[in-house]
């Protein structure tokens, strides 16, 4: 009985392996793409609460570009006071 079980198990593994590998495509063709899976086009990344505001502008110079050793810029026109 034990011998039969071992034989059955071996046969199952062998047949399964043959079936699986026969479906494998070893020939690589076409283009490969790696989806990043996040960003504006992927709202699921942000969950239900993603509300992108494309009109937002953030102006932030890099840290090494913030130096203004001699700033003689003119003042903007003053807004009229009430």
């Amino acid at each position: 009985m034990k011998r039969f079980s071992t034989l059955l198990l071996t046969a199952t593994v062998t047949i399964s392996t043959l079936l699986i590998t026969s479906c494998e495509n070893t020939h690589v063709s076409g283009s490969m793409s790696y989806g990043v899976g996040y960003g504006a086009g992927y709202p699921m990344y942000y969950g239900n609460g993603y509300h992108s505001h494309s009109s937002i502008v953030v102006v932030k110079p890099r840290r090494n570009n913030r130096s203004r050793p001699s700033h003689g810029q003119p003042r903007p026109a003053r807004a009229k006071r009430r």
Partner: protein
Amino acid sequence: MKGFNKYLLLLLLPLFLTSNGSLAAQSESSAQEIIQNQHGKLVWADLYTGDVNASLKFYQKTFGWTVKAFAKGSTKYHILYDNGQAIAGVLARDSKRNKTDNALWVGSIDTDNVTSRIELSAKNNGTIILAPHEFKLYGKRAVLADPQGAIIALLELDLTNKNHQKMSTKWDWAQLFSTNTKKAATFYQDAFDYTIEPLNTNKDSFFLIQSESVQASIVNLPESFEQRDRWVNFIEVNNITAVLSKATTYGATIIYHAKDKGVAILSDPNGAFLGLTEQESE
């Protein structure tokens, strides 16, 4: 020989004392230099929230910050720590006091003299929300609303209080979204002593310059938002994408994310806006 050693020590004692004294003076003057070099810069921020526990949980889980409570009862003040460095304060506020938000981040700008700046702000139509008061941990502080309603705090660091040296330097940037950028720029120029640098030919966006460095920006408030001026304070993180992922898991909303620029703005679960900037490689 023993006697000789005694005399030698006595002779060296004044030398030791003077060198120690000069070292102390040197470190004090360098601290003063650092503080002077950051006038006009965002150095601290406090979160005013209608739900302290929920806010604390969100920032602890998202950023890995730790928390410590000071005082008790209604005056309880929490400090959030990033790797042992104090990074922000959290206070309870009655959300009914604010018409729209349950929570609000109020950034503190380092200044030379809180009292005189507040007086100038009032003269230039600013509204004083909290008059100059001793902020025991770091120095003197005041909170005001500019003429168009944006709330901002001023902080005058106390040189004799060494606690400010344990403050995190991760507050990186501040940007004002304004309904009238020119009017706002003029206010911050007159009251806070910034120099203005227009960013475009329309002259409707500005850099605010102080201590020989660009410290903040003013841009138009998009129409899709409630038309009320507001400052957004930006904190530096190692990996914006990872932080945003965690933030949304814990209930935040992403308002803006420019992956190419390494900048984002989120709205935390209580509605407070917080900006993120990605750490720049040297």
